């Protein structure tokens, strides 16, 4: 009975070449980040000053940095950290934002108006400025940066969720289930939540990459991952003095970020319905 009232889902999701290519790129990067360091003969933090600033070779596939650490291993470990942090931050923002947005929209009335106003204003403060302010308050570190990002990040998901819930509330099938006597909780859980989370999830896939880029920027400035922990941003920063001489240090982390971005972008593009003039 419940299925009869389900919202019709767009059936035209197709795997296109784009999604497949994008998916492959992302999978390769993640796989490398997870498995690479395990397979690598070089511990990420093992220094060997005698072998410093070596160009890419068969021994060190992407060369070494200024204190002789293997750049490839280090970058892959850095990618792990960036990925985990990026996903964690986005997941937290998605969860918090969706919950708040849904509740507020479902309740309606003054609560909705008040919270929406606050959210709109909170979004006004530029993202990075808030993150920097959080770092100023809590001190440097990946956690501080993460907290700062969630503090701003949830608002977008709240907006998305709110829009979906408002649309759904009027949707006939909600009224239908109400007339059947379902309790509010049941409506929320089995019908509203799946439909509400979906657009947020779509946004989140691109947001993870954006989050990773912001984290990298913060680490580059010295506010993110603190030594000896190094994420992609800190490695790029460490490689900056050697951009001309030892270009490989800064390049690989950047390439990883770009590859992830392009991959996720392609997946996103491939999944969207192709709108044609008809």
């Amino acid at each position: 009975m419940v299925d009869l009232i389900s919202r019709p889902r767009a059936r035209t999701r197709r795997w296109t070449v784009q999604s497949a290519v994008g998916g492959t790129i992302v999978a390769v990067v993640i796989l490398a980040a997870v498995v690479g360091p395990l397979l690598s003969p070089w511990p990420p933090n093992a220094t060997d000053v005698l072998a410093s600033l070596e160009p890419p070779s068969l021994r060190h596939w992407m060369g070494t940095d200024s204190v002789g650490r293997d750049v490839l291993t280090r970058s892959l470990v850095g990618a792990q950290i960036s990925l985990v942090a990026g996903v964690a931050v986005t997941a937290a923002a998605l969860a918090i934002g969706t919950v708040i947005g849904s509740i507020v929209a479902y309740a309606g009335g003054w609560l909705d108006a008040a919270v929406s106003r606050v959210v709109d204003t909170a979004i006004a403060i530029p993202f990075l400025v808030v993150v920097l302010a959080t770092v100023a308050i809590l001190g440097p570190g990946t956690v501080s940066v993460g907290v700062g990002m969630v503090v701003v990040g949830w608002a977008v998901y709240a907006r998305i969720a709110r829009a979906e819930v408002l649309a759904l509330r009027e949707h006939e099938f909600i009224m239908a289930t109400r007339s059947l006597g379902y309790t509010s909780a049941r409506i929320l859980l089995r019908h509203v939540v799946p439909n509400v989370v979906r657009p947020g999830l779509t946004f989140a896939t691109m947001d993870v990459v954006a989050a990773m880029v912001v984290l990298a920027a913060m680490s580059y400035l010295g506010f993110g991952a603190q030594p000896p922990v190094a994420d992609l941003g800190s490695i790029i920063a460490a490689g900056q003095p050697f951009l001309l001489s030892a270009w490989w240090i800064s390049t690989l982390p950047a390439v990883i970020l770009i590859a992830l971005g392009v991959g996720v972008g392609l997946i996103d593009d491939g999944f969207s319905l192709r709108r044609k003039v008809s």
Partner: protein
Amino acid sequence: MILYLLRRLLLSVGQLLVLAILVFLILQAVPGDPVKIMLGERASPAYVETVRQQMGLDEPVLTQLWMYLTRIVTGNLGNSVIFGQPIGTLIASRVEPSAILITYGLVLAIVFGSVLGITAALRSGTVADYSIRILATAIFSMPAFWVGLVLSLVLGIQLGLFPVSGYEPGLVGAFRTLTLPAIALALSLIAVVLRTLRGSMLRVLGTEYVEAARARGYTEGRIVRRHALRNAVTPTISIIAVVLGFLIGGTAVLEQVFGIPGLGSLLVQAVERRDYPVVQVIALLAGAVVILAGLVADLLQAALDPRVRSAIRHG
């Protein structure tokens, strides 16, 4: 209409107020004693007490809030103990490069984003469209600071076309020192402008009034110029207001990369040295700019779209 303008202005004022309160809370949120953190381990207790009183931190919170708000309105931004200057002077000395950089970056992003977005829409489905979009996604995924680094390396050091650090005032000086960071800044946004404009152009080109125009024998050029563009621009304007926020954030990082003595690098230094008052003022400024941009965007939309004007009149 006048009523709408007044209400909209009031809304902005309200937003600014909320912003000010949120910024005020920054100082309050610091775990531990902010003054001690600011002045460092080695400051004498007497000095710490003096500064605390100067900053009014021994008063109850609401009194502090009131003092804070009244001082902002009268333009008294306080002093920076760490930089040893009144904050107002400090900010004023560093506003120029940041303001120029942001505008420069915004203009570049809008111009190139629009051209590419419209081209991609008109050649939708072709190789040109795909390559433009993939390029845009790739560039969007590049950290702005890395792009800045690469630009400074290639165009600055290797080719010697631009200086890679510092800021020179004046028209020529600004062009020389700010072009590279402006490009780096703009690149991350071109993708957003491009996608939005392309999307709305495609939507407009698929509407029935465009089809009706084709049925009347209008050339594609006329349709794009006189009908499509106007309708496609409106959603893009609101996006730009949002994007401005990211631009401001980006300048903080890029000023560091290129050694530009602007508000962005000031903010970074203030964060490093835990100078909360300065952080607060810059955050307030940044937020105010975005709020004002939102106001301008709303007014522009009303100016361009008669349906919005009608809704305002009757809503």
